[in-house]
Structures are given as structure tokens and as C-alpha cells.
């Protein structure tokens, strides 16, 4: 067991708009290996929720199975959470979201959990555009079963086992864009400056938001020949346009130069302001996002940042035209048509 958070409770910890301190967003002590990328992502989630002043109990945490999927126990201790079975978190999240449209759903999965056993569920939750933040803690291997290659391991990359992976890699961001996700981003667990705003933007998006985070497994896949190691990621990271995340409550100051920035207003009123650079492309177009990712892939680079945004899509509830009240709050009066109607229905079967 290792805990990497200070135990000392400072009396004057900064508070957010709700009066909560960052501590209120923490969970249990992590039991992952010291230095595991997943713990940094956990901290980024805590930071993002704290900064956005999200009510902790209005979040539902969901995960599959794996080291990564254990993480929801380590953040937002005041929220309910569920460890589903391996690869099936998307369906469980779908049901949960159908039951109550008013919570924020944060899903945590691994690359094995999502890109292999759960690939079927993953693409379908994307197609249905379920309103949730879906975080993949992507280490290119199966941590919990001791380091086998996963389907996101790049061809030629080797883990501690030393045999280069002979198979093609699945890029979850490209898959998500192709299957219609409205928000796709990639981060690196070692780059908190970028990751926290990425998560915040994902939380502000309505519909399915994928955040694929390169998250090195220090125990099994942090070798110099691994493309999911800390140093490889640092050396090969290529950021798209840098951006500011401006929460809905904050005033937008007009200090940007026309033509050099692109503003995308999210459902909750917050704004993503992208600063165009040589690397930037039109993130609102699927084809241009895919082209940018493919170009980087060819050069052996890892493209990070916001890769795609589309705020015009309907989410699952819109598509199914469900009532505004959460379904789990409906009572007999709303749901049961009563005996008189039943008698009338029976008449049709005479």
C-alpha cells in the first residue's frame, strides 16, 4: 500500500465556489504501484472536479476491470461508484445514465478493458452518444494481469517482456471520431497542465467525451523500447493548438487576435478557446481531425490536446425522446396506467 498524498490537513485550504476544499474530492489511498501513471490521472480528475465546483455526490463513477478501473475508488469518495465487469462498463454506464439523466457520469477504463474485451461496447456507446466522460488510462498493456501487450500497444513497441509487439495498434481517438463522438481528446498523465483543462472541457461537453490518456505502467511497460513509457511520451508528444478552458461562470475577456483563435462554446456555457499554431487544424471537422491524427501517427508522434469537438449532436436521451424528469424518480402515478386501462386493453384480445 502506498499513499502519495499529504496526510496533514491544512486549516486554510483553498475552497471552491461550493465551499469545498480539494480534499472533498479525494477518495481512498491508492493501492497502485508507486509512480503508476493512473494515479496522476486520478489527481487530475480530483483537480478538475474541484476547480469546476462540481457537487461530488452528483457524480456517478463507473469502471471496468484492471488497475485503471480500480482508480474510481481513489477519487470522489462522496460519490457512488461501480466496478462493472471486464469491458462492460459502457453498457452499465448506459443503463445508469438512462435511469438518471441529471448526474455527471465519469467512466474510467483501461486500454485492455476498452480496446480488446470492451471494444464492441465502446464503439456502440460512442454511436449512441451517451452523455458521459470516458477516460481511458492507456498504458499499452494489461497491468493487472502482469504486462501482456494490449491492442493499443504500437507495432514494434516492447514491454518488459522484451518481445516487440507484432500487431497493428488500435487508436481509440480515431475510432471514436469515426464512430461519431462529439468530444475527443488525448492527454498524457505526465502533463497535468494540459490534462486538467482537457478533463474540464470534457465535463462541460454534453454527449460522449473520450479522454484517452497515455499513462505509463512503471512496472511492466516503461522500457526505453516502449512507446507508452514516460520518456517516449515526453519525446514524441505533439500538442495540437494550445487552448484555454473558460468555465461558464467566468467572463470572457477579449484579448484574442482575430483569426488566431477559435472559440467553441460547450453545452454548459463554458468556452474552449483554441490558439492556432502551425499544428492546428479544424477540430470541428471529422476528416480534418482524422487527417491530423494519421499524419502524426505516420511520423511516430503522439498527438495530444483536443482532437475533435462537435457541439451539435443529440445525446441518447434526446434521441430516445425521454421525459425531462429522471426515470428513477417516477412513481406508480407516473408509470402504472391502472386497472381501467387494463380492462380496456383486454377488450382488444376478445
Amino acid at each position: 500500500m502506498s499513499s502519495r498524498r499529504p496526510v496533514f490537513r491544512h486549516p486554510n485550504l483553498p475552497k471552491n465556489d461550493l465551499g469545498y476544499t480539494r480534499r472533498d474530492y479525494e477518495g481512498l489511498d491508492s493501492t497502485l504501484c508507486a509512480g503508476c501513471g493512473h494515479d496522476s490521472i486520478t489527481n487530475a480528475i480530483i483537480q478538475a472536479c474541484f476547480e469546476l465546483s462540481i457537487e461530488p455526490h452528483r457524480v456517478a463513477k463507473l469502471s471496468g476491470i484492471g488497475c485503471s478501473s480500480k482508480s474510481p475508488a481513489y477519487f470522489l469518495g462522496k460519490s457512488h461508484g461501480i466496478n462493472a465487469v471486464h469491458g462492460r462498463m459502457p453498457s452499465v454506464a448506459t443503463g445508469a445514465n438512462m435511469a438518471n439523466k441529471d448526474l455527471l457520469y465519469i467512466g474510467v477504463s483501461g486500454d485492455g478493458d476498452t480496446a480488446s474485451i470492451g471494444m464492441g461496447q465502446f464503439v456502440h456507446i460512442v454511436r449512441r452518444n451517451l452523455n458521459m466522460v470516458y477516460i481511458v488510462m492507456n498504458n499499452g498493456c494489461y497491468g493487472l494481469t502482469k504486462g501482456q501487450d494490449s491492442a493499443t500497444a504500437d507495432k514494434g513497441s516492447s514491454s518488459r517482456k522484451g518481445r516487440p509487439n507484432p500487431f497493428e495498434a488500435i487508436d481509440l481517438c480515431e475510432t471514436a471520431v469515426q464512430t461519431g463522438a462529439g468530444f475527443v481528446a488525448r492527454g498524457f498523465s505526465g502533463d497535468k497542465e494540459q490534462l486538467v483543462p482537457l478533463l474540464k472541457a470534457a465535463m462541460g461537453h454534453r454527449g460522449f467525451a473520450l479522454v484517452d490518456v497515455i499513462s505509463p505502467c512503471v512496472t511492466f511497460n516503461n522500457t526505453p523500447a516502449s512507446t507508452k513509457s514516460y520518456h517516449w511520451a515526453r519525446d514524441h508528444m505533439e500538442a495540437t493548438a494550445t487552448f484555454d478552458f473558460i468555465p461558464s461562470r467566468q467572463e470572457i475577456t477579449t484579448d484574442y487576435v482575430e483569426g488566431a483563435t477559435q472559440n467553441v462554446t460547450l453545452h454548459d456555457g463554458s468556452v474552449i478557446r483554441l490558439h492556432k499554431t502551425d499544428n492546428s487544424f479544424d477540430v470541428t471537422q471529422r476528416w480534418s481531425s482524422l487527417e491530423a491524427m494519421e499524419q502524426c501517427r505516420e511520423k511516430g508522434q503522439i498527438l495530444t490536446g483536443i482532437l475533435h469537438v462537435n457541439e451539435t449532436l443529440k445525446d441518447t436521451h434526446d434521441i430516445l425522446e425521454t421525459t425531462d424528469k429522471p426515470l428513477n424518480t417516477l412513481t406508480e402515478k407516473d408509470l402504472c396506467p391502472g386497472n381501467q386501462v387494463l380492462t380496456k386493453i383486454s377488450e382488444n384480445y376478445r
Partner: protein
Amino acid sequence: MKKLNRINDFVIRFANVNGSGSASANNLFAKAVFRLGVPVSPKNIFPSNIQGLPTWYEVRVCEKGYLGRRGGYDFIVAVNGQTLKKDYEGLESGGYFFYDSTKSLTEDYTRKDITLIRMPLTDICNREIDNPKLRPLLKNIIYVGALAYLLDMDFSILTDSIAKQFSKKPKLAEPNIRALKLGREYASEHFAHTCELSLKRSDKLAGHILIDGNTATGLGALYGGATVAGWYPITPSTSVIEAFDKFTRQYRMDESGKRKAAIIQAEDELSAMGIALGAAWNGARAFTATSGPGVSLMTELLGLAYFSEIPVVLINVQRAGPSTGMPTRTQQSDVLACAYASHGDTKHVLLFPCDPKECFEMTAESFDLADRLQTPVIVMSDLDLGMNDHVSMPMEWDDARRYDRGKVLDRAALDSMVRDWGRYLDSDNDGICYRTYPGTHPEKGAYFTRGSSHDEYAAYTEDTDAYKRCMERLSQKFETARDLMPASHIQINANAGTLGAVFYGTTTNAANEAIEQLGEKGIVLNSLRVRGFPFKDEVRKFINSHDQVFVIEQNRDGQMRTLLITELDLLPSKLISIAHVAGTPIDALSITRSIEALLIDKPKPETPKGGAA
């Protein structure tokens, strides 16, 4: 030759090609019998195919009210060339062979003990019906018109049915009524005094309805308050969700036209069950419906639901075998697979409806039971029950009834809580703990749901003692479930009887009829119909008070028998399996014959224990 001469007591079979539109004509006939007030049980025997393969529709008419299959057929409408010979040979002696004589029979049709009824259906169609597209469909209606004459039916029943069916499109009724008349006219000109089977109006049905089990199940989910359904298409369960969808579109709309239900066609059954589980975890009443292969895919999540104590309802409309087994044929062959579905020490609550009314009641009840017990509940229907129409008493709903949402703490309850709360703390000593829904309270009641590695406070642990306590409490909960199961139906025919019969679900009608047949031969059996698992105490008592018990069911290995032996710790030799493995619904005659044969082989035990059950 002696022709079969009977009123309101015969079996008529229709041999058709699937995809030829015969179903609606055959339904029209069955419905007409029903509307004459005569007990009727139609059975559709169809292939796993969309067009071109043989399909049969069998209608049993029985004034006495036996609604199971009888076995054999007395009249056949043979309009499928592929099966003509087989249909011919299977006809009961003295029966009637009605066929399309546009093409004449070959020389090997030599039976002398049956009556041939030759009707040139194709010729009539070609001559009388201008629109070639309508001919195949109307051909079926023409034979129904002919039957009306042959069986001396009240013709207005048929024309009224057509008018009712097309009440919204009266234009379509007209060619159908004309086809009926064409059939009747031809028959009256050519077949006077040919058929000695007849259908007379009766008063045997009062207030009954004719409905398929899946529609009733869908209604049960509507009334039971289900709001979320995940599903994946599979025969014979698809129409459960279709019914739920249809009824929620009618009776579950809010003022602004939005739906008070979310129905998701998932990518597979893993996902369908995941959706139901996720919704149930989050406090909605949720279910899924499937059949055998789907149950196989759902078993991992059923295990999670069992161990993490999430109420979820699964409707299993059982069928025979794998996808390339006999997927459109009926069986009761998932009993063991469902009772013990999943990994580890799992056991599930099962309900066994036997008719549409019970489909409705048990489905509605399953949501209360799942919520009360915080565990999966599986409703064990089957293809025969689900997809065939059955005469049933109408469904009823007590408007004073309230949903039992079980032990759930809301915000106020959490605030006023004086004692210690733990998600898996059994403070009432019935094995059932208090749950909370996500989003309820800012400070209290949150926990992380996972399988069985947790202590009473839902904290992760792999401690042996904690695990043992958890597993034992789940056993205790199953004991609580036993008391909540619906009562068995017990029929005592001999007070000091030594022979008993146990059956369930769609075996009921045929079993009851067989028991009467045996009674007429001096073999008296008491019976018990199982309606739920875990077995109520009366099941054990019933079996213990008889020397020999026949367990009648529709699967090869006697799965219910195995379950009874295992769960009630019974001597296997006491339970004798009467198993029907045809893929067609079980019939009374074969039960009677099997039991008779067994009793002749085995002399009765010398010291009968006797005693009333």
C-alpha cells in the same frame, strides 16, 4: 370407413409454406373458434427462416377445456407440396385431408381410411382474383371460407372478425370478405355432407381473452413500473420488448409527448444485461428479455448482480438449443442454466408462469421481488407460452397496490439515521441490507459497488472471514426469498395417494389432462405445480408424502428433477422423469402413455406410505 364425427372436439392442422401470409388466415380461424365461445389452443410450429420452408399451425378445439396439445390431428389443410406426403400419412384414421387439387395427388396416396377433400385453390384464385399480388394471401382466406362451410361454423363470426381487423382500413376488408365467400360457395357446391366435424357456439368461455404470453409479459413490465429496457433481438423473446415498446408509447407519454421509458436495442446481450444492471443500480426498474443463447452471454453480469446485490429482471423465453439447434421450437431447457447462472456460488430466483395471465402477474411481481431481495429475478417463459395465443382469464390490476421498492434509504432516511449504516450490514437479520441510490445525499450513503470482496461497509477487503460472512448472508437472503415465492398449486385427487406429479410452466395443461386420462384408467395422481424457485416448503412436503413422484417437463435430462433432488436433498429414485424432447409443445397422450408404461414395468411399492399432501 368410419368418418370422425365430433362436435367441438378435434384437432385441425394447417400445413403451409412460411412467408406465404398463412399466419393471419390461420389466426382468423382460431380467433373465430374463440369467439364462438369454444376453448381453443392454437400452436404455431415454424422454422428458423423467413420464406420458403414448411410451417404448421395446429388448432385444438376442445369443449371440455383442455388447452394443451392433444397429439395427432383429425383434419389437415395441406397446402404445402413439400410436406404433403408426411401430412397425409400423419392424419388420424377417419380424418379429413383437404388439399389444393389444382395439382392432383400421385398414385402413392392410397389411404382408404380417410376422406379426401379436393379444392382447386390455385385455380380459383387465378380465375377470381385479378390482382396477382393478392392471390397468395387470399388463397389462405379462401380455405378458411371453405372450412366455415365444412365445419358448419357461424359465418358472421368470420366476416365480423375481418371487419374488426380492418376497421381502420375498410377498403382492405372487402377483398378478404369476398375471398371468404368464394371459399364457402365452392365448398357448399361440392362438399355437402362431406365432413362430420363441426363447430357449435358454446358458453365455455366467459370473459376470457386470447392473447400470447409475450404481449402479457410486456404489459406486466408496463404495470410493474419498468422504465429501462436493454435488449438484443432473438426469437422467441423479441415480441416481449416490442409489446413493452408499443404499450409505453400508448400509456407512458408525458404532457409534452416525451417518453417515460428508455428502450435500447443493444449491440449484444452482454450489453443488454449491462444496461438493465446499470439502470437498476441507479434506482430505475429495469429489465431485459432474451432466450438461451442470450442467457449464456448474460451470465457474467448476472453474477455481478447477484454478488453486488443489484435488482434486475430477466425474461427468459426459452427455446430449444443453440442458434443452429431448433431456435424456433419450444423447450423448458434452461432451468438449471438459469437457477445457477454465472460463476462462483450463485443461485437465482426463478418464476414459472403457465399462461398469459401469469406472464403478466409474475412479470409485474418480479420487479417487486427483485427490489425487495436486491437480486436478479428470472421469469421462465418459453416459446409456446410467449409466441402462441392462449385462452386466458383477463389480467387484473389492484389500483391500491404500491410498488415495493425494498430497502432503500432516501435523503431524509439517511439524515434521521441513528444506527450505523453499511451497504452490506444486515441489521434486520433477513439477509437483506439497505441500499442507497447515487446522488441522494451530499455526505452520507455513498459507496463503491463491487462483487464480493467487500466488508459490511462496502470497503474493499479480501479477508476470509468477511468473505465468508458475505456468502453466508447471501444464503440467508435466499431463505428469505423462499418465503416470498408464489404458492404452489396443489391438486389432491386421492387423499391417501401414493403417486404424485410435479410440473411447471407450459407443461401444466397437458399434465392436467394426462392426470384426468390416467384417473379414468384407475391411476390416481396428486399434483403440484411449481411456480417459483427457491422451492417453497410445501414442495418438499408434497414429495415427501408420496412414494413416487413423476416430474413432467420439456427437456431431455429432467432439469427440474435434478434441481429438486439437489435443492431439497431428495432420494433420486423417488423422482421419475417424464421428459418430452420434441421441440413441439408437450401433449397429454404421451405423458399418459409414459406413466402407464412405467407403472406396468415397475410394480407399485409394497408398503405405500400414503398420507395427504
